[in-house]
């Protein structure tokens, strides 16, 4: 498996501000994803982070709200823009595809975001 780290692990933010979450993997991976888990809900895929090109967003999620970067095969960022209390969630990055991963998919430790 891969070792995945996320920063920050938690944050409390004011509405209208933006937060950038970082995801770092200890080995090169083919695929990186960003998920959201709202309180009491299951995980929902936000987007696939594509290396060197624009992310692919799922229905209901847009680039202006959740800009994503992936400059290389081990790092990605997710920005939550112009936050509102409805954005309070756990944000998780996940990785798949790579020499250490076969076809399995692993999750980072998550970022717990609270928007006041």
């Amino acid at each position, binding site marked *: 498996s891969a070792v995945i780290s996320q920063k920050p692990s938690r944050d409390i933010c004011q509405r209208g501000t933006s937060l950038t979450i970082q995801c770092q993997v200890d080995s090169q991976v083919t695929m990186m994803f960003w998920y959201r888990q709202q309180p009491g809900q299951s995980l929902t895929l936000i987007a696939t982070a594509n290396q060197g090109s624009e992310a692919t967003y799922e229905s209901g999620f847009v680039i202006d709200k959740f800009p994503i970067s992936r400059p290389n095969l081990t790092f990605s960022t997710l920005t939550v823009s112009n936050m509102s209390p409805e954005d309070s969630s756990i944000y*998780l990055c996940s990785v798949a595809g790579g020499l250490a991963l076969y076809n399995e998919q692993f999750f*980072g430790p998550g970022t717990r975001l609270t928007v006041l």
Partner: protein
Amino acid sequence: EDKVVQSPLSLVVHEGDTVTLNCSYEVTNFRSLLWYKQEKKAPTFLFMLTSSGIEKKSGRLSSILDKKELFSILNITATQTGDSAIYLCAGDRGSTLGRLYFGRGTQLTVWP
């Protein structure tokens, strides 16, 4: 529309009991079915099932997939308090690797 339904939503058992968790799915371009255990924030990978009828085992946990009937089960034998967690299943929408569609999970509580 993709759908993953887990049952039961919650389950309370005593240590030593055996439990069966269910997952039915309707997922576009289905590639595989994955099971995760979630205790705090990050889901921990348990199994990935691709082929029908082949049981995967890891210690007291086992799982099997039925691609004809579109369901999977996760069995936990001789449960322990450390098994208390939310168990999530997810279908991989295989147009590209790893686009997972999750069910709502089963909250398992194991009492001593």
